[in-house]
């Protein structure tokens, strides 16, 4: 498994195994069972049931609002 890290600094790169362990812990705390076989198509099928209008761009607009109050 490859996790390449580009360091925009002089700090040492994080240990790859440690990164994946952190992600496992984060997922476990959130109740997420990480599915390495998840695909965009399967996610698409799930999202189709959520009544989200694509033209609202809810997710990306929410990121912009979190960055800038006036967004």
């Amino acid at each position: 498994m490859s996790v390449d890290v580009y360091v925009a600094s002089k700090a040492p790169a994080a240990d790859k195994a440690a990164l994946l362990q952190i992600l496992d812990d984060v997922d476990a705390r959130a109740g997420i069972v990480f599915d390495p076989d998840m695909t965009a198509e399967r996610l698409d099928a799930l999202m189709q049931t959520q009544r989200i209008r694509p033209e609202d761009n809810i997710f990306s607009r929410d990121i912009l609002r979190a960055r800038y109050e006036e967004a």
Partner: protein
Amino acid sequence: MPQLLWDASALAKGYAPEVGRATVRALLAAPQSVSMLLSYVNYAETCAVLRRQLNRGVIDFAAFSAARSLLRSDVFLRPNLHIMELDGTVILASIALIDQHNLNATDAAILYAYLDYAQAQAAHAPKSVLITCDVRLIGAATAEGLPTLNPETFPLADVSAFLASA
């Protein structure tokens, strides 16, 4: 082939029904010869927006869990996607971008690191392109000489040609 420098505002489109989703998925599916870069902060920002939509009832847990799994695989299991760390020297130097472009601190640090990365590449290296739909970030990057691609307006039909470009 260009190198893709991801911003969370664009990356998040890959996990929800949004305008530009197909373009984002096509970019993420680029061949391994296309190098990509994402900051840890942008990864966390994308995780956070998924959590907020769950907490607001926009998506259910099954969709949330699936999106987080796919995001994790996209970022940590793709050999051509590299993760970028930011340290204090980058954050301090990026204050110049805050002053110049009215960016927030996080965006400025990431843009500074991306500019640093792009400028550090050899002259013959593939050009670096910032993938974002944040208009303010697009303006700042353009002013600093970093090309951008907005997946909301970039046609899916043009992705292959873009990825094949120098």
